């Protein structure tokens, strides 16, 4: 009741401001002034302490030899020199890059293809969307156990290969240094394609069917329509999907720990798993922080490049 009344009054109000009335100056848009800054205080303090201060102090420890207890010394760039001189750690850096970019490319290609296929027309599209999105909601660690079984030597993948006459393709997927990393990537892509698909579906929903129809009548083929209409219109979705996948890909941890534990012989170690092992298993806090700093700088650089590449050009 009061809502309706006040709405009516607000409307009257606006009408009265439109007509020039010297007695009242035009009301500015509704604002929340300076006096209310403390509403933001809890959230901002939490963020500054737990993200900015924590990261700053992590960066500080990266230049020390702290072991987590007692005193420590500044050792300059020694930690970083050791990182780039240890084969296993440069290998971990390389693996992080491969997983990060592989994850970005495959999830986006598959997600976009699924989104295009399930955008309109198909009668089962709603059901298929719900089913394809399902892996997204499951814990990555649970997903990893399922796939560990699938990749096992006696597991379903090898049995399927044997059944269709590809016995020579059978491998011990997770213990073969050449294949283990690819296997981890498959699990990551399998779980997250549904999320990318949903982001692209939201973008595709903003492309009016009439526009595509008009272009088709003008003689534009499917690929031309995709390039000239769809891609520019789903630019925001591309930016979001690529940002999310990049950040997730570089931080990958759960899947590696559950699938291979970083093995065989460090073949699937990533920077994130090395941070965990150096810091919490070997309690080299300073060295772990240095590794985390390398990972952070890497993510930061790649994110900036990606933000630039997918910026809104309109």
């Amino acid at each position, binding site marked *: 009741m009061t809502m309706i009344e006040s*709405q009516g009054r607000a409307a009257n109000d606006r009408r009265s401001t439109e007509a020039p009335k010297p007695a009242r100056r035009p009301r500015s848009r509704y604002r929340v002034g300076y006096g209310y800054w403390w509403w933001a205080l809890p959230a901002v303090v939490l963020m500054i302490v737990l993200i900015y201060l924590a990261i700053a102090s992590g960066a500080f420890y990266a230049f020390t030899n702290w072991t987590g207890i007692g005193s420590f010394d500044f050792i300059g760039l020694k930690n970083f020199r050791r990182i780039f001189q240890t084969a296993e750690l440069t290998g971990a850096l390389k693996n992080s890059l491969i997983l990060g970019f592989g994850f970005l490319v495959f999830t986006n290609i598959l997600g976009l293809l699924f989104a295009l296929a399930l955008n309109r027309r198909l009668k089962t599209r709603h059901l298929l969307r719900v089913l394809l999105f399902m892996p997204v909601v499951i814990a990555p660690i649970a997903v990893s156990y399922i796939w560990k079984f699938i990749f096992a030597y006696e597991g379903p993948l090898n049995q399927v290969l044997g059944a269709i006459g590809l016995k020579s393709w059978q491998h011990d997927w997770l213990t073969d240094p050449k294949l283990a990393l690819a296997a981890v990537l498959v699990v990551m892509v399998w779980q997250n394609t549904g999320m990318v698909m949903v982001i692209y579906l939201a973008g595709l929903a903003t492309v009016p069917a009439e526009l595509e129809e008009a272009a088709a009548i003008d003689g534009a083929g499917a690929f031309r329509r995709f390039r000239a209409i769809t891609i520019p219109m789903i630019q925001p979705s591309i930016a979001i999907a690529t940002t999310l996948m990049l950040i997730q890909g570089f931080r990958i941890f759960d899947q590696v720990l559950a699938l291979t534990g970083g093995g065989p012989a460090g073949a699937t170690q990533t920077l994130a798993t090395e941070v965990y092992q150096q810091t919490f298993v070997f309690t080299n806090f300073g060295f772990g922080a240095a590794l985390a700093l390398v990972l952070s700088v890497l993510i930061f650089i790649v994110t900036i490049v990606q933000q630039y590449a997918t910026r809104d050009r309109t």
Partner: protein
Amino acid sequence: MFSYRKKTLILEIVMILVTLAMLSPFYFLVTTSLKPDKEVLTSSTLAPPKHLTLNNFSTLLAPSSGASSNILHGLLNSVIITVGSILLLVVAGSPAAYVLTRSTSRWSTRTYYLVLIAILLPTQLGVVPLYVEARNLGLVGSPVGLIVVYGGTLMPLSVFLYSGFFRRLPRDYEEAATVDGASRSRVFLRIVFPLMGPATGTVAILTGLIVWNDFFTALIFLNGSGHQTLPVVMYNYVGSLVSQWNLIFAVVIISMVPLLAFYFFAQKKFIQGYAGGLKG
């Protein structure tokens, strides 16, 4: 123009097959969890169980077994930590986002930039100092400590999501209520927040899912304590089972059921949350 043609039917069939292939891991998950011990070792992994058994589940959940109290505790801890984190993110995040979007001062713009940058910052670097600080404060192994950690690290996401919704909310209601003499806090609590139900839903689903499924932070902060969340309980338990896939998969299914049930109950909300919320 774009009507249902033969080509569409082919695409439909292809997509159904693709979806079935994508879901095949769930087939192995369910069938293996229903097999008795002997069959796991002898029969093909592709074959459905010859003798259906729920023994694996009853072994895990029977009150007499050691596993059941661990699993139920893990479930309880996961619920407490997830709900606590969501509450913190909603109660602190929504007024912050509101002030930041409705105020035009230079400082609010600057603060909002801090929020945006924080989303992109890799939080891994902060985990080590956070762990050390939490240890000094005696908060390692406590649900409260972990709720604060999740609240802080996910706060930028919450503020960002809320801001997107607030910016699209027309100011007419707020202006009208002010004319009626309502204070700013009353306007927010009685009008804006209730209108923003979808925003709160999106924040709750997106952040809740991250917290519920998180393994890394939970492992570091809670491992070995009596307050482990489900993913950590699962990790430790599976580590003690060597290749007993039927039991392992029963644990995995038990850990998945609450979330999948919630997903199918609110699947529209989930998908919209991911699609719409992130557009901001």
